[in-house]
Each structure stands twice: as C-alpha cells, then as structure tokens.
C-alpha cells in the first residue's frame, strides 16, 4: 500500500477537523477525495504531506511514517496546494530551480526537466526566465505549481483543486497526464469540487464530511448503489445539499425588479 491512514485525527481547539480517518490506497490508483467546504480534506492532505501534525493516529506514505520519518516522506510526495502560493518575486525558472535544489536535483538536470514541463504546458522559456511569478496569470502560475510538484518524479502526488485557473486545453492535458502517471504506477490523490471531472478521471472516490468517512468505492458502483444517476447528485444527497436547487430558485426570484 502506498498510503495508509490509521485512525488519523486532527483537533483544533474544540473543533475536530479530521475524525479517526482510516483508509488504504494502493499504487497506480487515482483517488478522488471529496467533501463539502470544511469537511477536513485540506487538513487531511496537509497532514499527509507533513505540513501539520496529527493530534492522534498514524499514517504512512510510501512506507514512511508521518511522525518518525517526515523528511523521507516529503522526499517521496508531490503536493499542489489549493492556494497555489508561489514566491512572487522570483522568476518561474528561479522558483523551479529553487524547488529542485531542495530535492537535491542538480541545476543542469533540473533545467532539462523544467524544459520538458514547459513544453508540455505550452509555456515559453523566455517567460520563465524574464518574468516574475507575480506577473503571471493565474493559469500560468498554476502550471508552475504543478511542475514544482512533479519535478522530483514522486511516486505519490496530492492535488488540491489543481484545475483552478487552468484553461480548457490545459485542463484536458492535465487529466491525460495524471491518467498516464497512474498507469505508470504513481498514486494520485485528487481533491476537487468539480465532480464530473472526478467521475471521469478517478478510479475510486472517497467522500468525507465533518472529518468522517462517508463513502469509499468506485464512482460508477457508488452511483448505481445509491440510485442517484450522477456523482454530483450522490454528493449532494450525502452532504445535505438536496434542497439547494429549490433554494437557489427561490433566492433568484428575489432579484426580480
């Protein structure tokens, strides 16, 4: 198993963000990690990437224990955070070379890899060398963040809303990329609110709410078992959004002149 969570829990003061979450993810699987806002998805991903410490429970990624071997674990994972934060006063190339250096990739090897990524993402090398990241569009910045997560060729990659800001072409390319990566044995954990993409791309879907596991299974099997038609409808059924459409219609009527 590439990822193992055993009663993983995170408590912030009086609030339990992740509540005794247990699951296992094998190699080569794309797992959609879903939940409404505040369900504990980002907190789980941040724990699995060593960014925040769990309150209790255990987890291993690529066999490395989260608490005992955090640096080895970090060396074997890639992470695209939802914020898409970068150091805006570095150029794209400076940023990527800095990230590569942190993973011990020599400058020449890093540059060769970066060139492959920018060719894939249709970025020009001049943009990467001359422009500061603060001047990049949101989509371009997101491409740089995705590149920085994959640069060291990690066996496990966590994506938190990776398509945010990408144009339609880039999004299609990205989906193909992660499917290919999974075929080559990489484990992908994909957290997103765009459920039709999750339904098409992911081999397995995990839905959590209030930090607890609600559902775990193949998207088509889950949809069929709950007789909900689409993953989106299943999600709203499970997370209390069934009344949303009617409420939205009622609210829209209040805008009538």
């Amino acid at each position: 198993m590439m990822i193992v969570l055993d009663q993983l829990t995170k408590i912030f003061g009086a609030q339990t963000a992740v509540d005794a979450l247990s699951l296992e993810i094998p190699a080569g699987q794309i797992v959609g990690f879903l939940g409404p806002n505040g369900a504990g998805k980002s907190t789980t991903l941040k724990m699995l990437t060593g960014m925040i410490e769990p309150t209790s429970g255990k987890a291993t990624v690529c066999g490395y224990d989260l608490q005992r071997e955090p640096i080895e674990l970090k060396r074997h994972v890639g992470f695209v955070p939802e914020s898409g934060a970068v150091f805006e006063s570095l150029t794209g190339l400076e940023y990527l070379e800095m990230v590569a250096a942190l993973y011990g990739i020599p400058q020449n090897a890093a540059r060769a890899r970066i060139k492959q990524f920018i060719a894939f993402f249709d970025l020009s090398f001049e943009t990467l060398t001359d422009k500061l990241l603060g001047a990049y569009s949101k989509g371009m910045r997101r491409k740089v963040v995705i590149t920085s997560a994959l640069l060291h060729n990690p066996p496990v990659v966590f994506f938190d809303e990776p398509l945010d800001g990408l144009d339609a072409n880039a999004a299609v390319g990205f989906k193909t990329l992660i499917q290919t990566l999974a075929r080559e044995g990489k484990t992908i954990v994909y957290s997103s609110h765009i459920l039709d993409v999750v339904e098409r791309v992911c081999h397995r879907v995990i839905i959590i709410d209030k930090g607890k596991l609600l559902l775990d299974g193949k998207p088509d099997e889950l949809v069929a078992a709950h007789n909900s038609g689409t993953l989106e409808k299943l999600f709203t059924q499970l997370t209390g959004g069934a009344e949303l459409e009617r409420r939205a219609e009622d609210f829209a009527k209040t805008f009538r002149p």
Partner: protein
Amino acid sequence: MNSAELPLPPILPEPTPTPEKTLRRLFLTLFLRGRGARGLNKLGTPKTIGQKLSLTLVFYALFGCMALAFLHQPVFALAVYLHAMTFVFLGMFIASSAGEILFNKEEADILMHRPVTPKAMLWAKIRVLVEVSLWLAGAFNLVGLFVGFGSACNWRFPIIHLFSTTLEALFCTGCVVLIYQLCLRWFGRERLEGLMTTAQVFVSIAAVMSGQILPRLVFRFDHVLTVGESSWWIGLLPPAWFAGFDDAFAGSAMLYSWLLAAIAVIVTGTVLWIAFGKLARDYEMGLQALNETISTRVKKHNHRRWLDRLVNVPPLSWWLRDPVARASFLLTAAYLIRDRDVKLRVYPGIAPILIIPFVFLLQNNHHKDASDVGFGVPFSGIYLGMVPLLGLQMLQYSQQWQASDIFRAAPIIGPAQLCHGARRAVLCLLALPMLLLVGLIVWLLRGDWSQLVLLLPGIIALPVFALVPNLGGKAVPLSQPTDAAKSAGRGLNMILVMLIAFALAGLASLAWSQGWFWRLVLGEFAVAAGLYFFMRRSLARVRWTSTE
C-alpha cells in the same frame, strides 16, 4: 498543449547545493526584492528594494560621520556611542523585519511539504537577518572604525570593533527570535499574531531607549563614561557590554571592561543557545500554527461589533456622514485592529519615533516656572503630527492590495472620500490616544493643567499633517503591495515634520514666555485653516488614474 513523450531525464551525479544554502539564497532574494511584484520583469526588480537598501546604506554611512566628534576620545566613549546607535538601528530593523521573515503565512504552502526541516528554515532566515544587519551596522560604523584607528593609531580597534558588532548583531537577532519563541511557548498559537506585534513594539521601544540613553550619558559625562560604584547600572544596558568588549581588547583594558566583555559573550551565547537550540521546536510549532487556518475559538460577535456601534453614535456619526468615508473608516479601523501584517508594519513603525517627544519632555522637566515652560510640551504636541503622517503612509500597503480594485470598480469618481475615512480612522485610533497620553504625561510631570494649552499648536497642525500623505490622491488605504512599503521616502517626511516641530515649538515657547502665545495660536489657526481648505479642495479634484 504539446505532449512530452520523452521520459524524465535521469539525475546525473553533479554537485547539488545543500537545502540550507538554497534556502539562504532564497530568503535573501526575497528580502532584497520584496515578496509581491505584480507586473514586473526580472530586470526591473533591483530597482525596488535593492536600490533602496543601497541608499539606506549610504544614509547610514553619512550618519556615522557623527563619530568624528569622538576623535581623540577614550575608546570606551567612542565604543559606547557606536554600539548604542548600532543597537537602535539593528533593534529596529530586526524587530520590523523579523515577523515578516520568520513567520510568513504563504511560505507554509510553498515550503512546508518540501524535504526541509523547520530548523534549516530558521537558520537560513537568521543568517539573512544577521547578514543584512551587518551591512547596516558596517555602513554606520565605517567612519567610527577610522576614528578609533586614528585616535591613537590603535590598529586593534577596527578588528575588535568589527567582531563586537557581529556579536551585537547576533545578540539582537537572538533576542527577537527568543521573544517570539517565548510568546509561542507561554501563550500558545491562538494568541501568536497579536503577541508578535506587541513583542515587536516592545523590542523597538527598548532598542530606541537603550540607544538614546547611553549617547546622552556620554556627552553628559564629558566623554569620560565609566562603570563605577555610582554608575553600576550602566552595566545593565546591552550596548555597554559590547563597548566594554572593545575597551577590554583595544582600549583601557580595565577590570570593568573585562567584566562587560565577559557579560557580552556569555549573554549572547546564552541567548543564541536558548533561541536556536532549546526552543527551535517552538519555531516549528509557530510555522504550523500559521498553516492551520481553522479558528480554534468562536469569538463572540459583540467583540467585533463595537466598531459598528462606535461609528453610529455622535460625534463620529456626524463626522462620517458620507457612506464611502464611513466604509473606509471601518475598513481602515478593522485592519488597524485585526490584520497582522498591517499591525506589524504600523505599530512598530510609529512607536520608536514617539520616544523622541518623551525624551524632550523629560529633558525639559526642570522648567517649573509657569512663564518659562521650555521646549518639551509644545514640541511633543506638534511632533504628534508624525502619527497620522506615518500611519497613513504605512496603511496604504497590504498583502490584500489587489482587493482594492473594488474601489475603482465602485461608482466613486476619485479616492477623496476613501482617504478621508482612512484619515479619520488614524486620527481617532492612533493620534487621539497618543494626544491623551502626552497630555497625561505633561500633567504628571508639571502638575499644572494650564500648561496643557501648550499642546494647542500641535492640535491645530494635526489635521494639516494628516492630509499631507493624501495629496494628489495618494495613500489610498490598503491599495499598494507590501514590498513597496520599505520605501526610503518616509525618512524625508519625518525630517520635514521634525524641522516644522522644532521651528513651531521654539516659536510657541518664545511666545508663551513673552506673552503673545494666544496671538500665535490665532495666527497658526488661520494659516492651518487656509492650508486645510486648499488641500481638501485639491484632494476632492483628484480622479482615478488608470492602473497599469
């Protein structure tokens, strides 16, 4: 999108920089360029912080020429002066930069999932802080080194002084880091952000006070300052320890110098050991704390609604009749009270400057005669003009500056009302409390209510000072990226206010002693009213300019 079908190239054996070196280079680049830079290309970047830093170094070097007054004076007197002033500069620099460098919120998402330890990050940041501190200290001490060398061909002084200054930089950095870590340990992460601001303000004030007291003593004792039975307390002031180090190795080598030198080494070593050895784990906790976005405590709404209530009762409700000015007042006040980034910039920026009027008040406290009030009271009142001036200048910078696009998107013809709201917030929340404090101190020192009228020239000038940053539609609240906040232009404004304060306070003091004070007040009121009217009209005419 092109498909890259070639496999990723293998990593060939070649030397790789260590994470520590990579991080150090990263943090130095970020410090020199600033953290946000929309619309810039790489060639444009050195013009921002790098160039300003060069100007600052030149300014420090010129300021260091004051050391020429110590030519042919004892080593201890020269060293006390140099270390005291270095302590002020370093203390203020480290206090104002440390929060941003040590605890940057976005940094967690970028670096915390990479294979680097928080300890490596801490050391890289410390090295950058110390490195830049040494540039500043080096620039200021440059002339002093020659003075020390030239006084008696003392070739050891430059070498020893360079060493003791490095020690002092390490001590300052260690103290600031230690204060943050102790705050984290004792008060927990929930109160980290508020405490960081408080800690910075206190460090700044302590640095300025320590730096102000010693040089004054040197002049008072006619350059023969020593630590003796009656002046043992000098040994409590950190700059004296490092001055003692210089005197022990390159000066009189008296017993008290050796004692002070030993204190310098032991205290610095202890601070560094505790900050970077014993409490390094607390820094890791602090970084994680900033990464945890979930609020741990549900705050009562009532605590946050007092601002709303405040603007709805007279006299503020009368003053904020315009809805845009009211909204701007609330926005500015909320950022002054809640936003960590703004608080870290505004309060430590203003606090040390406000020491100066108190020094003047205390110095002139011997003027007990009602007809001879001295210079301190009117100077303190006029100097308060610095509060809105600096406050508004610093409030225009925010990490959320892009959100200010809403001002241009809204149906408002220009920034005037936004500026008025921000100005009133600064006057109410910063200038008014300071005025009350100065009034209280004047009363406590002089025991005479009648002397409070000497604050009138300052109160009359306050609205005019407060309008200066907004001239030409500038200093719109929270509308500029934070990297531009390290501008050297503020120094010019401060010098201008200081000159006006000196001139007007001198005039007020003279007018009081010669019996024409009230005529001066009337005259000043007429001039200030004219200026105020002219500046407001000019601001009202300003329209939004295109943002590129």
